[in-house]
């Protein structure tokens, strides 16, 4: 967003001016905001924005972040059992990427004034949702491939347009996320291909997984356009660029030839090419199942949230220890060099414990290959 008023504040908060002047101010600001949206400019954290734009984005980005971290569970379920070391490495890297995506997205939500701890608390107490798809169980190894191909495929179809979303930090996070997701999707497809071309038992395992994941993947695009409550406003604000049904149709059209190439069928007797529309017709989604999963009655809802909450609760003493240690270090630094303000960092503090291994120059900051995401 390039055109800004001289005074840029966070939306909705009363400044010291207050009163009528402020009301006028907001009208001007709204005009600038609307013009920026119309001109396809990016809104940035310090720009004024309508309260509902802010709160809607916080909700959407947070739920997106929650989906990444809940989404670690169905796949992590197979890390210890992956049938080859190569597949185990790929799966570990993928689950690690998902934690990284969660971190980017919580950071994006925090640029809007949200607090990660608070958002996690909303997830743990069921006040915010995550993608319905992760409430389905991974029952066989082939499910890992089906998730890569179909679930990541649906996510990419949804998320590529978000790379052009009007809110800058979200759009930029999505660019990074989509690159990695595309990689995962290809790996999932390749996993299924290996199974499909493998032994009869492996082929059957792959088909069974696709049969179970196909319809839930179509549900990832959300309710039909007529029933989608947030869609109109999201599209007006250019957070969303395409309707649920448009994206779902695009996904079906992409998947049909891929399924053929895999040598697997999609579990929909009504699925066929429609010459007139130039698109595939497909069967009716069981929206009652979708509603049940959203209400918390899917196969794994309780298990997923409980595992998240348990990990958080079991880790409380670790987080408390880290905070207490940081406070002690800060106090020591202050006592050590009160005037010079020289921080006595833990890194400096531990140099004495290092040993001569020829590796001194390779601290964690050099460990970039697959290193921890910031």
């Amino acid at each position, binding site marked *: 967003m390039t055109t800004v008023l001289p005074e840029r504040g966070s939306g909705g908060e009363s400044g010291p001016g207050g009163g009528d002047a402020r009301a006028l101010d907001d009208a001007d600001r709204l005009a600038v905001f609307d013009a920026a949206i119309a001109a396809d400019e990016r809104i940035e954290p310090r720009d004024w924005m309508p309260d509902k734009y802010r709160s809607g984005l916080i909700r959407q980005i947070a739920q997106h972040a929650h989906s990444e971290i809940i989404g670690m569970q169905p796949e992590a379920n197979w890390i210890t059992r992956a049938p*080859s070391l190569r597949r185990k490495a790929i799966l570990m890297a993928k689950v690690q990427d998902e934690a990284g995506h969660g971190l980017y997205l919580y950071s994006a939500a925090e640029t809007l004034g949200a607090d990660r701890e608070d958002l996690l608390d909303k997830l743990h107490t069921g006040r915010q949702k995550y993608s319905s798809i992760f409430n389905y169980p991974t029952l066989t190894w082939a499910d890992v491939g089906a998730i890569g191909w179909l679930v990541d495929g649906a996510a990419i179809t949804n998320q590529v347009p978000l790379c052009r979303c009007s809110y800058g930090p979200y759009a930029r996070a999505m660019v990074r996320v989509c690159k990695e997701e595309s990689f995962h999707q290809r790996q999932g497809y390749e996993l299924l291909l290996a199974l499909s071309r493998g*032994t009869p038992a492996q082929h059957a395992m792959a088909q069974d997984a696709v049969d179970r994941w196909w319809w839930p993947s179509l549900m990832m695009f959300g309710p039909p356009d007529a029933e989608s409550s947030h869609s109109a406003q999201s599209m007006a604000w250019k957070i969303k660029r395409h309707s649920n049904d448009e994206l779902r149709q695009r996904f079906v059209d992409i998947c049909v030839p891929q399924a053929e190439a895999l040598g697997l069928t999609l579990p929909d007797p009504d699925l066929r090419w429609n010459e007139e529309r130039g698109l595939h017709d497909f069967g009716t989604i069981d929206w009652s199942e979708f509603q049940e999963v959203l209400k918390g009655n899917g196969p794994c809802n309780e298990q997923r949230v409980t*595992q998240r909450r348990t*990990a958080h609760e079991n880790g409380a*003493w670790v987080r408390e*220890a880290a905070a207490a240690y940081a406070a002690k270090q800060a106090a020591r630094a202050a006592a050590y060099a009160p005037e010079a303000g020289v921080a006595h960092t833990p890194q400096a503090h531990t140099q004495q414990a290092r040993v001569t291994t020829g590796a001194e120059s390779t601290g964690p900051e050099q460990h970039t290959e697959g290193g921890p995401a910031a």
Partner: protein
Amino acid sequence: MSAHEQPPGGGTAPGPQRRAALALGDDALVLAQRLGEWAGHAPVLEEDVALSNIALDLLGQARTLLSLAGDEDELAYLREEREFRNVQLVEQPNGDFARTIARQLYFSVHQELLYGQLAGGRGELAELAAKAVKETAYHRDHAEQWTLRLGDGTAESRRRMQSALDGLWRYTGELFQPVEGVPADWEALASGWRNVVGAVIEQAALTVPEGPQSSAWSAGAGRQGVHTESFGRMLAEMQHLHRSHPGASW
């Protein structure tokens, strides 16, 4: 010669080199498997990332090393418990976060020092060591920082960290048992390890555990294929799918 001298996975490498690759490869593989159990369960998201990052590094090392000894998947999935050559330390259950960190501290200091030595040599082990030592320096730093935070954090974290260090101490003696085919100065390794680990523990305001570094009978037992009880269960989980589809490729 027992039947265990001809495990699955072929056997192209000569005896000592193969034994070296299996010992170090199994260490890395088994610890990667344990760390993989943490995915989605860590105290903070950053630790989910860090622990799986370390697991991935170790798995990469394991794949290189096992490939020196034969076929990586046959070796990982088709050997029985008695044929694995890892030290008992790495197979110890994760326990709480402190237990995992103590295991990481003990093992990563060992690995960094050992690979530091081997990196100066020649041959395939030296090549692997030169790459791996960069990773293990990061692993050691991670374990060291957490030992300090937990040891010098709250009373609760201090109690847990001390208990973890004490509980795993008996498995550390095995780290310095010479392995045939690994051209290391084992005495220097042992004294270097005690210096580094001792300094970290003291800096964390904790006490260096006392007593022997292994129970009398089990010193070196992992290297001979004698493991602890939880190891068989870990392998059952790791190998089940692969073994259920003999001859399949994945």
